[in-house]
């Protein structure tokens, strides 16, 4: 287990010591939303999301929208649909959909990237046609041909939140709903919001477990792509660890400054795939946002 995973796990233990002590909700605008009203916003600025795939460009970010609608029980939040089974002062249990970011590395117009305007070239065929040293490990390792499509899918499952004085614990368990890879994903997050006058800092530590089916579908090598790597790389379940910071500064009623930093340490089980040449992915963004 690497150092980041240990730090993340240690932080998850902290809120359990203050289990009974619930934080008051809605201390800032980011934590709560008005029922029956669309929350729309757009962020304009510059950022980049690194792409851990070999020969796939990093993803520039100029513009990102946010759109959410919460009813009494149903909600729609940035592409995710959910139904609240129970909401108490100290915990919430939802049925919720989600989508993983794995397919986004392969397709420019993946729903995760669709609004990330930029000139990124998601041209996997260029990898196949450019056999000189691409997708090779040392001189002897065979190249990988055209990549088959890795499709986007929706996951559906349970999403639980526990609210404590020292942050929110979020656990989610979701399964592929569109029969794309038939995999399961589980996430454990610790979310801590720190409002300081006009600033708000949200720190998030995350463990993200992906089943063997997911790893195989996105990062495994198909026989048509490379018979050698199809045999040589054996997929197994993986545990990524990540840290995220989202900070906002309120300038006016509608305008905020926005700074985001995300870092995910990719599990060895994925990083060992011949499709990758990075064992991490990161996102940096600075800009301003307008909330309608």
């Amino acid at each position, binding site marked *: 287990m690497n150092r980041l995973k240990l730090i993340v796990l240690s932080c998850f233990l902290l809120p359990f010591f203050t289990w009974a002590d619930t934080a008051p909700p809605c201390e800032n605008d980011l934590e709560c939303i008005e029922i029956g009203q669309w929350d729309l916003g757009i962020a304009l600025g510059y950022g980049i999301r690194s792409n851990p795939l070999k020969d796939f460009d990093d993803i520039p970010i100029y513009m990102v929208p946010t759109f959410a609608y919460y009813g009494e029980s149903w909600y729609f939040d940035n592409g995710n649909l959910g139904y609240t089974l129970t909401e108490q002062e100290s915990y919430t249990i939802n049925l919720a959909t989600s989508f993983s970011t794995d397919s986004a590395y392969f397709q420019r117009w993946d729903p995760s990237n669709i609004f990330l305007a930029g000139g990124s070239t998601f041209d996997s065929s260029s990898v196949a046609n450019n056999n000189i040293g691409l997708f090779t490990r040392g001189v002897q390792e065979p190249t990988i041909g055209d990549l088959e499509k890795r499709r986007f899918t929706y996951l559906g499952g349970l999403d639980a939140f526990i609210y404590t004085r020292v942050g929110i614990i979020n656990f989610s368990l979701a399964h592929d709903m569109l029969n794309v890879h038939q995999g399961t994903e589980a996430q454990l997050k610790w979310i801590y919001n720190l409002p300081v006058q006009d600033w708000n800092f949200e720190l998030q530590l995350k463990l993200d477990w992906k089943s063997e089916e997911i790893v195989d579908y996105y990062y495994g090598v198909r026989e048509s792509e490379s018979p050698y790597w199809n045999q040589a790389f054996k997929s197994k379940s993986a545990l990524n660890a990540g840290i995220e910071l989202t900070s906002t500064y309120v300038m006016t009623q509608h305008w905020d400054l926005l700074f*985001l930093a995300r870092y995910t340490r990719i599990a060895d089980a994925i990083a060992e795939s011949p499709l990758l040449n990075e064992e991490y992915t990161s996102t940096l*963004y600075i800009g301003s*946002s307008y909330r309608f």
Partner: protein
Amino acid sequence: MQISQIIASGFLLLSFSVSSSEQLIADETEKFTAELSLAPEFCITSDEQLTCELTVKLEWKNQIPKPICILSDYDNMVRWCSESAEVNSFSLDISTTEDIQFVMIDKATHETLAGVKLKVTPTAGPKVRRRYRNPWSLF
């Protein structure tokens, strides 16, 4: 508990209920002697309109008609007195953000006869609930 104690307790309860009934009758009599009413009694403010601007009408009824005075904690009308016993209403333009208490007193004796309050109530705030994702989770 002995029988004598039970009987004593019964008398005690009886006397209490009798005195309560007498008090009720007295209250009703008193209420009837002087009544002060206000229309409207409530003013609801909104985020856009925080101040209540309206005309209220005070009306009173005394068993024995007599000149009265109206006192209030509204700065623009601390005291108003009727000229005669026949007057039984009074209208007032109000601009306030807070409740106003009106008290009717006997003009001659200054005895407090009745009171009424204008309640200023803000509209209920928007209903909110927890949001489960950071608004910028699409990044």
